[in-house]
């Protein structure tokens, strides 16, 4: 009876330790994943900034000028009224 009790207590203690160890390992994994998530978010934010830089109209205009492109002098306009008259 005494031996069985000691065995039970020992088993319960082992189970408890195992749970605690598993919990700790899980929490460290959560921390690692959270850090990874934060880093990915940071990288994403940096990419968004880079995208905004590349999309900047001022930058595109500067590049176009460097390539020898010029602003269109006049834009030909088509008015809807004559087109409708042809139908």
């Amino acid at each position, binding site marked *: 009876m005494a031996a069985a009790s000691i065995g039970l207590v020992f088993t319960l203690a082992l189970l408890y330790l195992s749970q605690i160890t598993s*919990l700790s390992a899980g*929490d460290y994994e959560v921390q690692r994943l959270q850090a990874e998530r934060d880093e990915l978010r*940071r990288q994403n934010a940096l990419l*968004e*900034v880079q995208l*905004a830089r590349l999309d*900047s*109209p001022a930058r595109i*205009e500067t590049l176009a000028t460097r390539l020898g492109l010029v602003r269109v002098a006049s834009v030909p*306009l088509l008015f809807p009224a004559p087109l409708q008259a042809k139908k």
Partner: protein
Amino acid sequence: MQAVSATRLRVLFVIFALLSTTLAGKMTYWQAIARPELLSLAIDQVRSDLVVAAQRGVIRDRNGAILATTVGLRSLYAIPAQIPKEDRAAVAEKLGVLLGRDPAAIRERLDSGAEWLYLHRRLPEDTAVAIAALHLPGLGFQTEPKRLYPNDTVGAHVLGFVNDEGNGQYGVEGAYDGILRGSPGRLVVERDPANRALPIGLRETQPPLNGADLSLTIDLGIQTACERELRAAMEKEKATGGSIVVLDPRDGAVLALCSAPSFDPSAVAIADLESLRDRAVSWAYEPGSTMKALTVAAAIDQKAVTPTTSYYDVGYAIIGGRRLNNALGKAYGPTTVTQVLERSANAGAVFVAGKLGAEQLYRYINAFGLGRATGVDLAAEATGQVRPLAEWYPVDLGTAAFGQGLSVTPLQLAAAYAAIANGGILYRPYVVASRRDADGEHRTAPVAVRRVISAETAAAMRVMLTSTVDNGIAKNASVPGFSIAGKTGTAQIPDATGSYESDEYVSSFAGFAPAEDPKIVTVIVLERPQSRLLGTLTAMAAFRGFAPDALRYERVQPDRRP
């Protein structure tokens, strides 16, 4: 012998008793009285109490393009003791190449005796990655927030900047600092020797409240076009300052707002202080002849004149015993009120003001919003100056009629012209269209301040100002395919003695398009242009430069055949 032993025993007993009492007392002291202090010292060895910074809100233009955002950049630090002395020269050499700095200066810092020091704050990501790949001993990275402006100097005065302490200053960053910055949180945890939070132990978390994101009324495309034209005008005229304001007359939304000289919000430390001033909002000038449109609008609204009322122009007007001349002393003969605007006749403006009277002119000047802040949601707005009617001399009726003796900001004048453009309602200009926080999106409701003139008067003014561009002094502002309404202005600059500076002017153009159903209102101002009286030509050229872009971005269909 027994007596000696008994004495010794007593002495030993007393010593033992004293020691035991002292020990017990000390134990009681540490266990009961000093326990909190000991506990605190023990906890401090493993506990970290961190302030968790709130993320500053993102600022976007009306189409969602990022104008300002905060990103964590890596700062490089060193623990010199962990870098072997014989390796420090090589480490400094490698870092010098990647950081673009003198290796000797880096070596000096590594040998400074500091236990821990920053070598470079907020590195570009590419540089940080390159340094990390070297796996140098004793170096590490710490992430620090950095406010980034992807469009560099574009919109600098609208946006303002964030200083080293994280406080927003000038522009939207300054006016909305409290909303953008959010509230920091707190994280208290126990940590293991590897600086990881212990899973089972103390953990108190108060999450930060991130700042709200703002969507502006600014259109990045229109803003960029305006800045391009302002820059070109400034270079051509060697002007000391300039500004362009573009409003949507239908609700007062600011579509573009630029000021020169400008600055880089990412590098404010090296900016000239004068360049920080937003000349569209925080600077006032005498409006000159652009004021004539407001004078004529007031007189027509009061039915003191009509567009066809005429007078005989002799080149000057006498008022309050003073002679006020037309520009260059020109005499136009028979002149209608419409032609007063087309020819920008000072004598004609005095004639119109005389029909209106000082009290009514003063009332309309105030109704158009001159002399007081518009209430735009930007930091440091100037009010301009309109002297109280009680302080007016008789001649002031004449000079005020053509924009002398009072001062306005470009934004005030744009709001006043917007009232003419939209049918007579003065709107409060605004820059923030909406803010998004944890509770969702909150849109800004446009504010109609008051009706200034009747819809009929506004319609008549639109026709007259269109004629000023089609047939008059503002002909150079015409844009193929669109009806344009507008008025030029050339104003002298008052000096400290109360008179005007010799041969120095402020040139401007105020107008809107399409004239029949206006979608944009603009005011362009150039301070001290090199071409003096011809500065208005450059101001109109700037309008002609950006107006087609602005109208295209606004999806406005041409209303005239080229």
